[in-house]
């Protein structure tokens, strides 16, 4: 039983990480209908910047949590600037272009960011210094660390905060209007360019937080880390229904649980025929199954046949 609960916790933690990254994808998609393929790379930059600042502060004698927060505080504006620049350079000129054009520039941006990061931070893996107090909690004989609790909490808070932002504020209303129909929104006095830029900036600040939390949890950062993370988060966002904030959270948690339970039990269930190496197959299989029956994701809005 403790093993099962531990697997659920593993899945929740992993899922919250996916959700953190997926929220950024979904924000952008919700407004522009564009997969920001470079989002994973922004997450990576967040992790790298936070780590660099923390390493600089190591000798300062500040308490670990303060150092970590300063690192995070440094990462957020850097990521915001990166997100802003990406939108300006690679997406804005293509707003009326054929649909796949921004996908290709996004891939280009992703390659560029990776290699810039490699030039700046080198090819080696970076370790996150053990500055955060290691507190372990016991839940029914299963373990969860303090950082992991923080990850779940932050993911949930962000999801709620963003939902409030989108549903309850003036800015949110402008965002929804832009998502609905940019040209009409513009006619109604919404500065759509500003709104889209802001969306990117907000999405990128989420990426900074995600990058920081990921590297704190796994104590590792590397210039290539964004790719796989971005891919998984994208999958999660689609599973939940891309463009929907609650969907991103749900999709993330679900994907985390599927992977965790898949890796944990698929071997025993199939009598050892399939093992944990089929974890991703299992996840994609569930995704395909969900999309076959709900073609726009779990909680995604029904898209009319004519989009």
């Amino acid at each position, binding site marked *: 039983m403790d093993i099962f609960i531990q697997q659920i916790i593993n899945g929740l933690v*992993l899922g919250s990480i996916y959700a953190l990254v997926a929220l950024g994808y979904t924000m952008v998609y919700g407004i522009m209908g564009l997969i920001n393929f470079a989002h994973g790379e922004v997450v990576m930059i967040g992790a790298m910047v936070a780590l660099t600042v923390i390493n600089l502060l190591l000798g300062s004698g500040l308490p670990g949590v303060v150092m970590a927060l300063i690192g995070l505080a440094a990462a957020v504006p850097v990521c915001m600037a990166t997100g802003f620049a990406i939108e300006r350079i690679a997406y804005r000129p293509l707003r009326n272009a054929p649909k796949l054009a921004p996908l290709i520039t996004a891939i280009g941006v992703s390659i560029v960011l990776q290699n810039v990061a490699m030039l700046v931070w080198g090819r080696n893996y970076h370790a996150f210094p053990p500055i955060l107090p290691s507190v372990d909690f016991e839940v029914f004989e299963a373990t969860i660390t303090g950082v992991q609790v923080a990850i779940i909490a932050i993911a949930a808070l962000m999801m709620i905060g963003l939902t409030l932002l989108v549903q309850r504020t003036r800015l949110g209303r402008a965002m929804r209007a832009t998502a609905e129909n940019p040209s009409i929104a513009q006619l109604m006095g919404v500065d759509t360019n500003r709104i889209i830029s802001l969306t990117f900036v907000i999405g990128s600040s989420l990426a900074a937080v995600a990058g920081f939390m990921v590297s704190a949890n796994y104590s590792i950062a590397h210039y*290539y880390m964004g790719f796989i993370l971005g891919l998984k988060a994208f999958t999660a966002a689609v599973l939940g229904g891309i463009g929907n904030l609650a969907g991103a959270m749900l999709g993330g948690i679900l994907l985390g649980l599927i992977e965790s339970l898949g890796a944990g039990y698929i071997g025993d269930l199939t009598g050892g025929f399939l093992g944990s190496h089929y974890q991703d197959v299992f996840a994609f299989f569930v995704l395909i199954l969900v999309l076959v029956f709900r073609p726009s994701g779990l909680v995604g809005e029904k898209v009319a046949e004519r989009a």
Partner: protein
Amino acid sequence: MQFPRLTSMSLAVAAALALAACGDKKEEPAPPPAAPAAPVAKPEVTVNIGHVAPLTGPQAHLGKDNENAARLAIEELNAKALEIGGAKIKFELLAEDDQADPKQGTIVAQKLVDAKVNGVIGHLNSGTTIPASKLYSDAGIPQISGSATNPKYTQQGFATTFRVMANDVQQGHALGEFAAQAIKAKTVAIIDDRTAYGQGLADEFEKAVLANGGKVVTREFTTDKATDFAAILTKIKSKRPDVVFYGGMDAQGGPMVKQLKSLGLKAKFLTGDGGCTPELIKLAGAAAEGQYCSLPGVPLEQMPGGKEFGDKFSAKYGQIQLYAPYVYDAVYVMVEAMKRANSVEPAKYLPEVGKTDFQGVSSKIAFDANGDLKNGAISLYQVKEGKWEYLQTIGGAAAEPEAAPAPAADAAKPAEAAPAAAPAATPEKK
């Protein structure tokens, strides 16, 4: 009617070029001197040595490490102002990036063949080394890999393939023996990263554990890009093994050790050369204490010239990542063979590579008939106070693969004869 002439002309030109490039056995590509007979003014000859490893992509840190080691060896050799075949030799390193992609592996191999390199060090991954080895073999260019551990690499029947590192079979056996006998593990759990390296090593480890009367309670899998291992470790926890073995690299091994501890597993962690790096300790933090790993060869500190190499390398390029000592040795093995043959011609010095008997910084190097390291010793290490401490070396004979006794026995003869012929081969280390 001009067209046929044009074609035939270009045909002829291209054919000649391609022939030259492919290094037809009768024709010597012959960059080196026509001058050995008349050593009046000694000509300087540039000898190109190719090096291939991934320099971009997720394994770039290992690739760059290999390249740095090759560069260091080349610089040292140039400082010695060697003379081979009556000419002053200047070595030049042609470093290429294959991105760990088999297709690019063959493209850069072709580039090196076209550039008429005198020898190739690399590639890093088995997946790029194997398809590239065919090109080098066709061109008659000796190839020494310092890190490709897939046994298939040297079993293709090519005369040009060598490796200065124990293959998966040798290392897996030593690790299995160590787990059963030294750690006294009765039950083990095995994880591998589904790469050619990780899976190969894990399979051999499993065989060795079973042969030593151990029991494998579960086999789990991850990928070489993963960071979260909680699910498989939790499953392993439920099986209560004495030892968790990981076949894979340090970038996964480090976080894995950390998560192993935080999930409360009591099992010891054991891994191969891919995880036997300071990086693993850095990434695992305090959780690394008491864990084990193995490296082919003998610790640098115990080898003549080893410490010196380590110091020089770290002063210049920072910490050794992983395969640097092997690559460094590979360059020396190649150049020593050139010296013995008194030629930098691939065709002339190739037979000498097979007869190598060289005291490298990673181990004593001699090859069997396939070009595999003979009697590869495997050393084991344990983390004590945040550092890998040397434990013991499991020596050659026990680590010989049982699977292929016949060719190994044949191999012994020519190689055994070599030491007498090559006393000059021992490097002049101060």
